[in-house]
């Protein structure tokens, strides 16, 4: 090969490399030019509406990280994980210093068909960008732990504790690492520290129960198990990034969750208004109607509760829950004959629904049909043998009827079940 040919070949290589670099940079910068299409034809119209509108904003502003991020958050909020990940990654490319996008992308990648390896990349990046905000690092540590990388997980949990020495989630994580490594004493210390900072996290008490059991502290183990059994299932750790996703949920399902929350935080009128708006928009939303009836009953508005639930049984006559809720309202309104009928309808539809037998038994007892009441209460505990209230009322009725010995047995069983 001549010197000239060699020069030409070298130039060609340089040119091709430069082209490839340009192509790569271009791919990195604008790999996704159009937001992904998701088929939401069967979805709640409210969800479809916000997603479509957000998609339009992305099409109008394809270089806007916030537009892509907003669409990503909406898709993540409504469980369109793969599409959400695409959008959040694009947002991250356009705004590489914003920790939200790689973090939420990591969250999306841990859902649906999880890809922990890819999720870890996003979480590591978010951790680097997040500064004082520790949520990304804690989730990174938990994901590493779940993947069996105990040393890496422990390092990240400790890094959280350097910023926040009492962070209960990181202490719990270190407790889990110690437990996995068989260091039960270290696990106990970490878990107790976590429980003192966040006493209502079920997982902490559950693991502590096991650790204490293995350490031979039977009383302590029983105490922790009882605590765990009384706590709700999952801890709602503060997560400012993901809260933005949750806040974007729309549609009947989101309305129901929101109304429930409003009611139980004292904003009853707001809850009722929200449910009525939902029903005006989606008259077939049985769950919204049932919740409205139940909340009206809880707030003592029996007339409106009854009319709401009568609408529910009229719209869905095969829904045993609707008949049962109606029975409860009628019972509270001292309409025992009507309540009895509602409970019987419930049982016709769902024979093994123990609460209906229980309430029917109480109705019948008030109406003087003690034989029928006994039958119904016996059925209640037969169908649900862990039904403390059923045993209690069966025991009381038996004692009223002079069957003290059997009655006491049932009362004792009720006490045992309540003590669990």
């Amino acid at each position, binding site marked *: *090969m001549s010197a000239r*040919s060699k020069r030409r*070949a070298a130039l*060609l*290589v340089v040119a*091709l*490399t430069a082209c*490839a*670099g340009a192509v*790569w940079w271009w791919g*990195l910068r604008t790999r996704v030019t159009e937001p992904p299409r*998701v*088929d*939401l034809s*069967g*979805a*709640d119209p409210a*969800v479809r509406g916000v997603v479509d509108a957000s998609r339009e904003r992305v099409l109008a502003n394809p270089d806007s990280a916030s537009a892509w991020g907003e669409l990503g958050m909406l898709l993540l*909020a409504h*469980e369109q*994980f*793969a599409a959400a990940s695409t959008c959040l990654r694009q947002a991250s490319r356009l705004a590489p210093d914003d920790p939200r996008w790689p973090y939420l992308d990591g969250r999306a990648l841990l859902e649906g068909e*999880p*890809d*922990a*390896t*890819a999720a870890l990349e996003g979480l590591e990046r978010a951790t680097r960008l997040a500064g004082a905000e520790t949520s990304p690092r804690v989730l990174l540590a938990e994901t590493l*732990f*779940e*993947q*069996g990388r105990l040393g890496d997980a422990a390092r990240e949990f400790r890094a959280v504790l350097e910023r926040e020495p009492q962070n209960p989630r990181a202490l*719990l994580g270190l407790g889990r690492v110690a*437990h*996995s490594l068989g260091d039960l004493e270290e696990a106990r210390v970490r878990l107790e520290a976590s429980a003192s900072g966040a006493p209502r996290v*079920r*997982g*902490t008490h*559950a*693991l502590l*129960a*096991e650790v204490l059991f*293995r350490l031979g502290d039977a009383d302590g183990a029983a105490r922790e198990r009882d605590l*765990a059994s009384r706590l709700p299932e999952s801890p709602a750790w503060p997560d400012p990034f993901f809260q933005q996703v949750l806040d974007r949920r729309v549609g009947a*399902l*989101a309305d129901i969750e929101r109304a429930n929350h409003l009611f139980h935080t004292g904003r009853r009128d707001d809850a009722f208004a929200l449910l009525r708006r939902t029903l005006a928009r989606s008259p077939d939303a*049985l*769950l919204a109607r049932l919740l409205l009836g139940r909340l009206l009953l809880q707030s003592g508005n029996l007339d409106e509760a009854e009319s709401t639930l009568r609408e529910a049984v009229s719209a*869905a006559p*095969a*829904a*045993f*829950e609707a008949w049962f809720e109606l029975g409860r309202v009628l019972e509270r309104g001292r309409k025992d004959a009507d309540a009895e009928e509602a409970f019987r309808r419930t049982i016709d539809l*769902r*024979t*093994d629904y123990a609460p209906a037998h229980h309430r029917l038994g109480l109705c019948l007892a008030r109406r003087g049909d003690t034989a029928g009441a006994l039958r119904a209460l016996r059925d209640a505990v037969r169908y*649900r*043998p*862990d039904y403390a209230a059923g045993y209690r009322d069966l025991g009381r009725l038996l004692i009223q009827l002079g069957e003290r010995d059997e009655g006491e047995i049932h009362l004792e*069983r009720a006490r*045992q079940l309540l003590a669990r």
Partner: protein
Amino acid sequence: MDFTSAHVHIALTAALALAAPPGCTPSARDGGPTSGPASAPPWFADVTDEVGLDFVHEAGTVGDYFMPEIMGSGAALLDFDGDGRLDIYLIQNEDAPEDSGAARDRPAARNRLYRQGGDGRFADVTDASGLGVAGRGMGVAVGDVTNDGRPDVLVTEYGGARLFLNRSGETFDDVTRAAGIDNPFWGTSAAFFDFDRDGWLDIIIANYVVYSPTRPCSDQAGQRDYCGPAPFPGSAARLFRNLGATPGEASSVRFRDVTVASGLGELSGPGLGVICADFDGDRWPDIFIANDGKPNFLWINRRDGTFAEEALYRGVALNAMGQAQADMGIAIGDVDGDALFDLYVTHLTDELHVLWKQGPRGQFTDRTAVSGLARPSWRSTGFGTVMGDFDHDGALDLAQVNGRVKFLAGPSPPGTPFWNAYAERNQLFANDGNGVFRDVSRANDALCGTPAVGRALAVGDVDGDGALDLLVTVVEGRARLYRNVAPSRGHWLMVRAVEPALGGRDAHGAEITVIAGSRRWARLIQPAASYLSSNDPRAHFGLGDVARVDRIEVIWPDGSEAVFPGTDADRVVVLERGNGGSR
């Protein structure tokens, strides 16, 4: 190629590699570090057509998202006629025409019984068997409740359970009511075991939830889909104590519901899987129940007819993250050779299937990740699962069948089959001998290559060649039999443990340990495992290069021990209680 073109080729290769956008490199989703090569010889071949198994599962009329139809139904490998060959019983799950919203010009599909002939083919003998019942069938368990040496059958249903007595090795009678079996719940997996060690097999039925068909469920976007268990109250498992039968009068067998008296009634759960074994080492059988979305139960036998729930203390209630996950099918076996039984439980696609290793005795720890099971080739919703040494290398491997219960991003598009949105591929994991697994699904196209809505999985040596075969059911599809064709298999031993004093029935609950030199392999005699399934009641041992074992130790269900002399490998041995040396 001259120098110039070679340079250009290298440059182009480099350029193309550089130009590949980030994210196009293989990730765990495409085959993580625990994946095996796709080119390795497969372990299983689909022989469904070859053996004449023509069962097609019917799920009824779809479109109303009636929850029982997504849960599938079961399969049993049993030798009902006592000819030494495994037969097959398969369960249907179809609503009656009058309960169906759509018109249908045929009656509801019936459960089917297939007898294996000497040529290895299966003949449908349902009509004369008495087992051809229709209904919303779920699970099946097999055990001899009358101690007459013939296996009886329990079928669980959405809203019931039926007990069939094996009359003559040819026909079965439904004795449910007369025997005192009353389970008006959504029954799922069930097992026969002798919890009070009186010599009569008792029955445990896991029950699921008090389901409301009118309750609509959807994803967060509002797209209608099948419900999960969360909105519904769970049901308690039911325990039926076998009061015995008069000799020669099988139909006199009676059961008493001891759910409340035993303590099992104290807790309700959405139970899907059940396995009975001695977990705490006191030689009394305990009960592990896999709950869907709630903490699991481990009922420890208190030896007085009652049980104490200790799953939390013993590490099997929750996963390593402290979460109650969707626990479904259960596989049991000693994956790491420490002679302690470990548990593998299948879960949803966005969860991990969990391996709880036992040690010390009675304590379990979630070892999923360190066992190589946290990064499979693909994620899945697992149901039926079994442990078996498929390649006879001396270590228990794992098989599981998969199929979603919720669609990933929406229902099947119009014009495509409804069930496509739920179909997933099965999975197979090879054990390296130390309890660490490698995903070999890609090399097993027959078993793992085609997406379907897999549910039950039963394991047994169907063709009598000493290797474990697999029987799989799918929702709205054909049941399939997979023959073990693993090449270069090592030695093996198949052990049947029977109790001559109890009619020669299988010794449910016996623990068999095969010893060769310093090596020990432990197995449990208990056909009820996996999901809705009943397996070969014999214990199978892969022995690797061990051509002869030194001795076989047995712990019988009543807690007594026996030692049987060594034997050459590659055979079936029958251990009869009373004929081995005591320890």
